[in-house]
């Protein structure tokens, strides 16, 4: 099982990873994996920033940013990918996860602009919502916590079908208050299902701080109420998140559910519709940005010596180029035809 890790971001905003002395290549990973994931993370960030800008230009009606959550999302994704037999139920803030799982930048932009060819729903749903089965992802809705029982049911069906898939389901700190979260965890526990509950705890649900959401300091301690283990990890450090998830996958497959709380920071307002200056203390976001997961990962890779500054710059440049290109292509492409309105209300 994963060991308990210190989790709370340090109050002074110093990077938690800074404390790790002499970073080394984590076990099970090759240098190429980390370069690959760094590249994906940079690409995701680039798209995320552009999408926000496109919203201000009126081209993207709505977006929820994953800026600040990338390490949690990509660390767990990397573990899932390395395992090779995981299925993911992300939530609306998992932009980086969904992008990194294998979408092209063009597909991402199509989705945000509501164009035909959006891989998740063909423009029917909020961006990147629906299903991306080639990358083993389902997210039916953005109703908070609605995916949890579905993920548990998926895991149940996998076991009944004789395959040993582990299901990772993602949600925020706010989602822990929903009754369905309780029901999902309890059922998974009773049935000992291979489910990893990943709480991306950014300590806010829109404007509502964690202290109005629960009395507890650590969401992870809720796992005890169901009789399975829970851990809090530094969600700003991709390698930490990778390691914790890897171990959780092993545990889940053999012994049942695990709750992983990943402490993250929401860098942007809740969505493009929100303005967080109304409710976040001044300087809080700025301090959080000092622990930017993209920069942290880049620095770690520089330190380990598997990336050079030149390569870092090249990755950034290429990401930007792909984002530009994707924006243009998506912008020029067509929305779904009106005539498709009535399609697929029912299956065949």
């Amino acid at each position: 099982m994963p060991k308990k890790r210190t989790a709370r971001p340090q109050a002074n905003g110093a990077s938690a990873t800074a404390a790790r002395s002499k970073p080394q290549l984590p076990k099970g990973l090759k240098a190429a994996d980390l370069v690959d994931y760094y590249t994906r993370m940079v690409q995701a960030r680039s798209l995320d920033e552009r999408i926000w800008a496109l919203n201000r230009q009126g081209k993207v009606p709505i977006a929820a940013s994953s800026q600040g959550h990338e390490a949690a999302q990509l660390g767990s994704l990397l573990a899932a990918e390395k395992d090779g037999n995981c299925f993911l139920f992300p939530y609306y803030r998992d932009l980086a996860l969904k992008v990194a799982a294998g979408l092209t930048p063009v597909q991402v932009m199509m989705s945000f602009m509501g164009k035909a060819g959006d891989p998740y729903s063909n423009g029917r749903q909020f961006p990147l919502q629906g299903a991306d089965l080639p990358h083993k992802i389902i997210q039916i809705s953005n109703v908070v916590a609605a995916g949890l029982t579905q993920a548990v049911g998926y895991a149940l069906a996998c076991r009944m079908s004789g395959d040993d898939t582990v299901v990772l389901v993602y949600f925020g700190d706010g989602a822990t208050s929903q009754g369905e979260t309780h029901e999902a965890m309890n059922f998974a526990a009773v049935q000992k299902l291979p489910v990893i509950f990943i709480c991306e705890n950014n300590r806010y649900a829109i404007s509502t701080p964690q202290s109005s959401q629960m009395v507890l300091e650590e969401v992870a301690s809720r796992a005890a109420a169901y009789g399975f283990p829970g851990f809090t990890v530094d969600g700003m450090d991709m390698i930490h998140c990778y390691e914790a998830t890897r171990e959780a996958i092993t545990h889940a497959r053999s012994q049942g559910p695990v709750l992983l709380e990943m402490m993250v920071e929401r860098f942007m307002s809740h969505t493009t519709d929100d303005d967080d200056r109304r409710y976040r203390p001044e300087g809080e976001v700025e301090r959080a940005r000092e622990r930017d997961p993209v920069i942290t990962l880049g620095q770690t890779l520089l330190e380990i010596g598997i990336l050079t500054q030149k390569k870092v710059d090249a990755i950034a440049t290429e990401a930007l180029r792909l984002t530009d290109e994707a924006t243009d292509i998506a912008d020029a492409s067509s929305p779904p035809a009106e005539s498709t309105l009535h399609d697929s209300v029912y299956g065949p």
Partner: protein
Amino acid sequence: MAVKSVIEAVREAIREEMVRDPKVFVMGEDVGIRGGVFMATQGMIEEFGAERIIDTPLAEASIMGIALGAAFRGLRPIPEVQFSDFVWPSINQLIGEAARVCYGTNGVLQVPMVIRIPYGGGIRGGLFHSQNVETHFFHTPGLKVVAPSTPYDAKGLLKSAIRDNNPVVFLEHKKTYRLVRGEVPDQDYTLPIGKADVKRIGSKITVVSYGLTLHYCLEAAEELSAEGVDVEVVDLRTLTPLDTETVLESVKKTGKLAIVHEDNITGGVGAEIAALVADQAFEYLDGPITRICGPDVPTMPFAQTLEDAYMPTADKIAAGLRKLAAY
């Protein structure tokens, strides 16, 4: 053909489909050793094991959401809601999620799931064991809704529902479970979802109903026929998709329409039938469209007097039809 009750027909349909297709499974409260509170799954945990007859914790939202998630993986779950009155905690998963899956994934995912719901009153269940819940599903595109009235229809339609690739809300009127008996073929058969059935042919008035009250309509029709008024009785059997063709054809023939259901009148299924006919068979109408339905009180109360006062009975239906005939 053997004569069976509705609950026997339901049980046989589930059992036969579970034998036929290993992807089918049941989950719900007390469906295991107890065999369900109405015994719909009696003996099944012994036959299929606790993996395919899953006794769940007491939590309807999770029963629905977990069944839904299992359907994503290609299984064919049959979640049971113990009584219709307890479906409310699961509505987010059923109306909010399940109904939108196929549409919201542009057809990539389908939901082959049958939500079995014992419903309805007349059994001294009071406000929380008698509810008619069909309208909420009827008004939800993406769901199919089936509400049979006889053992034959129940078995054939339940089998079709289990083989269907969409979420089907399968409504079993509790009072029909043991009360209504009828012939059921011994061999495998299915009935098409979306086809109404003319249960009595007539020429003067069309009566449309479903579930328990269908039987009261047939009684009332006999009464009226003895008085020289020949009544046609259409059993909808399926609420979604609605067989508008059969209803319209019948009304075009008779010129008069009465709709009967136990559910509250305002905004019920009967309103839609009336609206459809008032639009698409307007020229054929020889009289006002009459609804003989449950009144707008929150389900039927516990006391026998009040339950009787609520329920559309054969007498009340006959009275309504007489008035319409005289128009």
